[in-house]
């Protein structure tokens, strides 16, 4: 399968890249990184120039199509932009022609763009994931946070429910953890507004933290580098602003998979988080080897 990491996975979302590659390999899923890929343009491109927002992702899709490969995309925002380009080309011969002129390549949208969460939950499959678990995430109560572009608009995302998605919850369950029921799993985290309009974004983040904590979550699982950044990097700032007492480590769902598959935390990038996840993992005895636990018992 072709792999489009996107800009964040080389920078602020580096743990996602590390853990995604590790667990994919562990599951026998071969990821071929699209050579010389370019930025998808994110919201900045489509809210500035509609064609630019379609042509930038189309160039990457065209490179993967040449190899006859579907594309796995770990970032929710990149996924949304790539899928929008794919559908624009598939639905309109005129648009296809325009985009091909823009990128000076042939792109027929014969391949499919899939979110990495969809690939793991539905192509690899929950049973295969469960079979690989050697260190179950017992006692870990996780709020699966999907955010917006992973499941919306439903016409674009197409792989899970737009209001109550369950794929990440099912993966957490397969890993031996406990997905919590909570109300903010698809609320927007504020995206780039945490930088550009922090006053507007702060209450959005606070609501997400508060609702997860109120429903008993110990931590979050996410599938988007921007969601991760906002939840992990901004948490101490929001806690201070609202005098809130929660402390909720944030994990990429691939990091949780890696932990349950027996990988060491640093081999998944867990040492790079702002909210240190180690005390929580220690308290749940998740990192201790099963045999050590047996001896004590």
């Amino acid at each position, binding site marked *: 399968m072709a792999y489009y990491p996107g*800009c964040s996975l080389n920078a602020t979302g580096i743990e996602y890249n590390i853990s995604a590659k590790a667990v994919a390999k562990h599951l026998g899923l071969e990821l071929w990184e699209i050579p010389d890929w*370019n930025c998808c343009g994110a919201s900045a*491109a489509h809210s500035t120039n*509609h064609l*630019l927002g379609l042509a930038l992702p189309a160039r990457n899709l065209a490179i993967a199509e040449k190899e006859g490969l579907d594309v796995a995309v770990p970032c929710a925002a990149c996924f949304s932009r790539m899928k929008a380009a794919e559908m624009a080309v598939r639905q309109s011969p005129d648009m296809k022609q325009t985009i091909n002129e823009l990128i000076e390549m042939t792109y027929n949208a014969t391949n499919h763009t899939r979110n990495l969460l969809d690939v793991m939950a539905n192509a690899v499959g929950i049973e295969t994931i469960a079979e690989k678990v050697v260190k179950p995430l017992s006692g870990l109560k996780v709020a699966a946070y999907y955010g917006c572009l992973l499941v*919306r608009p439903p016409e674009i995302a197409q792989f899970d429910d*737009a209001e109550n998605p369950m794929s990440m919850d099912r993966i957490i369950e397969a890993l031996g953890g406990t997905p919590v029921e909570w109300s903010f799993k698809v609320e927007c985290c504020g*995206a780039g507004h945490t*930088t550009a309009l922090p006053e507007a974004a702060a209450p959005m983040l606070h609501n997400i933290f508060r609702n997860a904590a109120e429903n008993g979550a110990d931590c979050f699982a996410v599938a988007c580098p921007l969601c991760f950044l906002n939840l992990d990097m901004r948490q101490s700032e929001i806690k201070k602003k609202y005098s809130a007492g929660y402390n909720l480590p944030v994990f990429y769902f691939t990091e949780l998979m890696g932990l349950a598959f027996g990988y060491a935390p640093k081999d998944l990038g867990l040492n*790079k988080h702002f909210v240190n996840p180690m005390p929580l993992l220690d308290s749940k005895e998740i990192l201790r080897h099963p045999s050590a636990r047996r001896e004590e018992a």
Partner: protein
Amino acid sequence: MERLELSTALSQSRQFVANLKKASQVDIRDCYQCGKCSAGCPLVSAMDYNPHQILRMLQLGQVDKVLHAKSIWVCAHCATCFARCPKEVDLPRLMEALRIEAKKRGIIKEKTVDLFSDLFLDSVQKYGRVHEMGMIAFYNLKSGQLFKDAMLAPTLLANRKISPFPHKIQGQQAVQKIFAKAKAMGGERL
């Protein structure tokens, strides 16, 4: 309350509405003002007009008022409204089209949002990929908040989550061409 000469406003906005439909695929007549979009919008408290009000204003021909609204810059395109709309009105796309047009007319009601996307795109155009650290440094410089998030930088640098150097791709020129052509093709006014 202000008086609105409806027939004049509607006849004057006819062309605008037709072009808006072309740019966004949204027919503003589809909206029956149920208010579900505004009820679920996570950014409504930061908006001057609620999403359903923006649509109502368009239905009443108040084009200028809509193009001067902060709301079209505040929308984060999270698509909660679109997913829930009983009439499948693609509001994020409408907001996007309105914002593009407002910018063309030089009406920029949230300068930081505009600056953020401009700098993001500058980075993509220059290197082919976003250079996160360079973009944020420019953003702080140009928005006059020199030390915004500065306390986060040491941890990000230590963990190699940001790099002082951009990652350039070989296809930089191909990307620059895409920018130039898209710009040349997208100059149409509403």
